[in-house]
């Protein structure tokens, strides 16, 4: 469904991502793991078209999107819930969700989806007319995810959805991703929280210093103590 081939991302002369290839199949949850600064965020930002790609090709559902800008990629059904949530702080929850649906013309469908996500995230319903900046970190993360879903993506990339959240909220978010998977959504999850991410994933990739160092079955990875220790700091988080 998503196929990154030999991707290089560069900031000036510094290569943040060096020739990484990765694929996500329909219906999967795939984890992209690695320490801080490994190039995970750069890779997904490049995939969605926010960062330019210095080399390699990106294909989404068979179409070459390497040179497409983010706004076009999102309209095609591939989107990113960015690191740090990036909700529109001065806009209300309602306005955030409406902007999430900016690519859609079906007003009724948008209204139905808002209803659906307010049911999925009841707290957003309670805070519907409040500005997003008044929400807690966990609530903002839920808003960010709901906002991404409003564009009806077929593949959602989530960049560090657990960052800075209490363990209870993290569990809630990972549960939610499993629900979304059951609904047929494909996901690529960037995480430092390796154990939790792998526990809901089908497959995993590990990046270190901009290069791919491991790829494999998620269950095998969780059980491999050597792997977790070598690249991910023994899974304590």
């Amino acid at each position, binding site marked *: 469904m998503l196929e990154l081939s030999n991707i290089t991302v560069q900031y000036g002369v510094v290569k943040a991502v060096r020739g990484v290839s990765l694929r996500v199949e329909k219906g999967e949850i795939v984890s992209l793991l690695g320490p801080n600064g490994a190039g995970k965020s750069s890779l997904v930002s490049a995939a*969605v078209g*926010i960062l330019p790609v210095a080399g390699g090709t990106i294909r989404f559902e068979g179409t070459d999107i390497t040179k497409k*800008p*983010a*706004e*076009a990629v*999102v*309209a095609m059904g591939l*989107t*990113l819930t*960015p690191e*740090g949530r*990036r*909700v*529109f*702080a*001065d*806009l209300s929850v309602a*306005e955030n969700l*409406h*902007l*999430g649906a*900016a*690519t859609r013309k079906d007003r009724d469908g948008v209204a139905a989806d808002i209803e659906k996500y307010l049911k999925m995230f009841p707290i957003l319903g309670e805070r519907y007319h409040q500005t997003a900046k008044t929400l807690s970190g966990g609530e903002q993360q839920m808003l960010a995810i709901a*906002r*991404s879903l409003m*564009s009806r993506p077929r593949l959602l990339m989530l960049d560090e959805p657990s960052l800075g959240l209490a363990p209870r909220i993290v569990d809630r978010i990972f549960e939610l991703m499993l629900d979304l998977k059951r609904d047929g959504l494909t996901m690529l999850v960037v995480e430092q929280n390796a154990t939790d991410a792998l526990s809901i994933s089908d497959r995993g990739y590990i990046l270190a210093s901009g290069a791919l160092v491991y790829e494999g079955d998620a269950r095998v990875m969780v059980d491999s103590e050597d792997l977790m220790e070598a690249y991910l700091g023994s899974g304590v988080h």
Partner: protein
Amino acid sequence: MEYFIQQLVNALSVGSEYALLALGLAIVFSIIGLVNFAHGELITVAGYAMFFAATTWLPNPWMALPIGIGGAALAAIVFEKVAFRAIRNASTNTGILTAFGVSIVVQNIFVIFVATRPKPVQTPAFLSSMIEIGSLTVPTLQVLETVVTAIAIATLLIILKKTTIGMAMRAASKDFMAVRLMGIKANWVIQSAFIISGLLAGIAAVFIISRRGAVDPFMGSVPVLKAFVACVLGGLGSLQGAVIGGVALGVFEVLLQVTLPQEITAYRDAIVFGVVGLVLVAFPQGLLGRKVELGDKEA
């Protein structure tokens, strides 16, 4: 009493003019961080559009008004496409220099192809009439300017609050990247901001030209400076700040004009800018500007 009301109406109309212009500057600045010093030239373009329409085919002087406003909006689109799009990701300094460049080019186009001397522009006679209520006489133009400005600001508020593009513009002023992640085209948001700034400048231009009765190539330079001062006073990038700064500046100017002894009215602008300077010492971010500490993630 009559004198007081007359001067109040006068002050509000000057304040409205500054608010319209400042709002146009602020909406562009809030989204792409560009201080568009070519904003004044939108007024000039509106003026010449009205002048050419009047001297060639215009059947009815009222039609000059939409032509002026449309001309300014069109010029704003052209400025963005031709000059500002290419330097979108460049530094603030590049933006300011480019804006001055656009301003100089436009001024000289009119110098070369029209004339340096002012050209007369006919506006509807109604606009230079007076409203009489009992013993009170106030210029229709001043009342209209205040009312139209209020309507324009209310309309803008509704657009910003209720429409997708309005929400996108508010969102883009804080986080453009996240707006693009919503699948919203950057060009669409930026162009809309320029169109709005052009329409606002066009409305202001109609009033400015009705008052002066003439256009000249450099007529935009003073208004844009006043608008910039109003923006800085209110807090650069804040739309409410631009309106408040504009009205405050206009009212203060008229107040000084009326109260200062004859001998020193020539120093009015110096006094105004001196006081604005003092205000900025007390509120370095402007009246409504938000203080951003170095290292804050959200700028």
